[in-house]
């Protein structure tokens, strides 16, 4: 799965940073029918977790009301250098992950 993550590369200790993630995904609602009239089964990214140096800092549970290619943005406090890791999975069983590094000074 195609993904984009954005966070500042460096931050001061205690600074509030903005984290953004966009994932390419159809987020199929399960309410649609294909051209032969067969229902298209629901397939959305149902959960997304972000861990900061192993500690869970953000969790999202999404349903059919979220548009395709979901874009999430949240804030966290930069307290140590390390990695933010994202893990997510959809109804079809596909898993994805991505990590981004941050250097915290001071």
């Amino acid at each position: 799965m195609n993904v984009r993550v954005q966070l500042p590369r460096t931050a001061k200790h205690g600074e509030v940073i903005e984290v953004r993630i966009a994932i390419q995904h159809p987020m199929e609602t399960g309410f649609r029918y294909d051209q032969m009239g067969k229902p298209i089964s629901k397939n959305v990214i149902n959960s997304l977790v972000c861990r900061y140096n192993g500690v869970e800092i953000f969790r999202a549970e999404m349903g059919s009301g979220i548009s395709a290619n979901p874009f999430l943005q949240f804030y966290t406090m930069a307290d140590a250098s390390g990695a933010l890791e994202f893990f997510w999975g959809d109804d079809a069983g596909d898993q994805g992950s991505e990590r981004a590094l941050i250097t915290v000074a001071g």
Partner: protein
Amino acid sequence: MSGFARPALCVFPAGVHLRLFAVPLLLAFALAAFAAEPQRPFPSRSGSDFTSADIRALQADDFANPGMLWITRGEKLWQEPAGDSRLSCASCHGDAKSSMRGVATRYPLIDPATARLINLEGRILQCRERRQQATALTYESDDLLALTALVAMQSRGMPVGVTIDWQNRRNFEAGRAMYSRRVGQMNLACAHCHEANWGKRVGAEIISQGHGNAYPLYRLEWQTLGSLQRRFRSCLSGVRAEMLPYGAPDYHDLELYLAWRANGLPVETPGVRR
């Protein structure tokens, strides 16, 4: 009451009479001649001018813009070897940022090898088939959209600049004719909305001038990136006309006419529209 004032014209000698009639007549001829020439909407305004502020903000934000997901994909594909040749786009073209700069502003153009009009998608397909010897990509596949968007984005901010000359004149005229030909059960031509009524509302939407300078673009209605030809097809479906297949020569002609019409407008790829 002393009666009516005499019409002022009557006091002029006959010669002045004639001249007074002749001026509007000449003007009418001049206008008729002008109308026969192809026209651009004035002032030219990009489709983003007709969208709401939140959509313009979405397009302007290089991270939040959902079209950027395809750009990321395109950047990966650019480096990936494909087909029997094991060549990637980068093997020949190097860094897309420099080699593809300004390329999209010149398309569609006449391909020297086949002497036929070719659009950006067509050029990528051709390169893939002949140089990379790879399996063909289909129109509207994520891969083709990603590569097209990547190439087109390198011209972002540069003005569309196609020239009409003896080589592409016939295509241009065909595209122009298609633009003003009534089609479908609604019996409408492109020009009815995008030439005569731009800026007015149809339902909740404001009719744009119908420029192609932001394609491939992300339409919220489609929930995906789409090519200009997909837009043609959805317009044709909207007026209940027969949709031509992707890659039809008629679409290329229309693309050329639209590019000429949009000359001078900045490329916005990847655009965002409703």
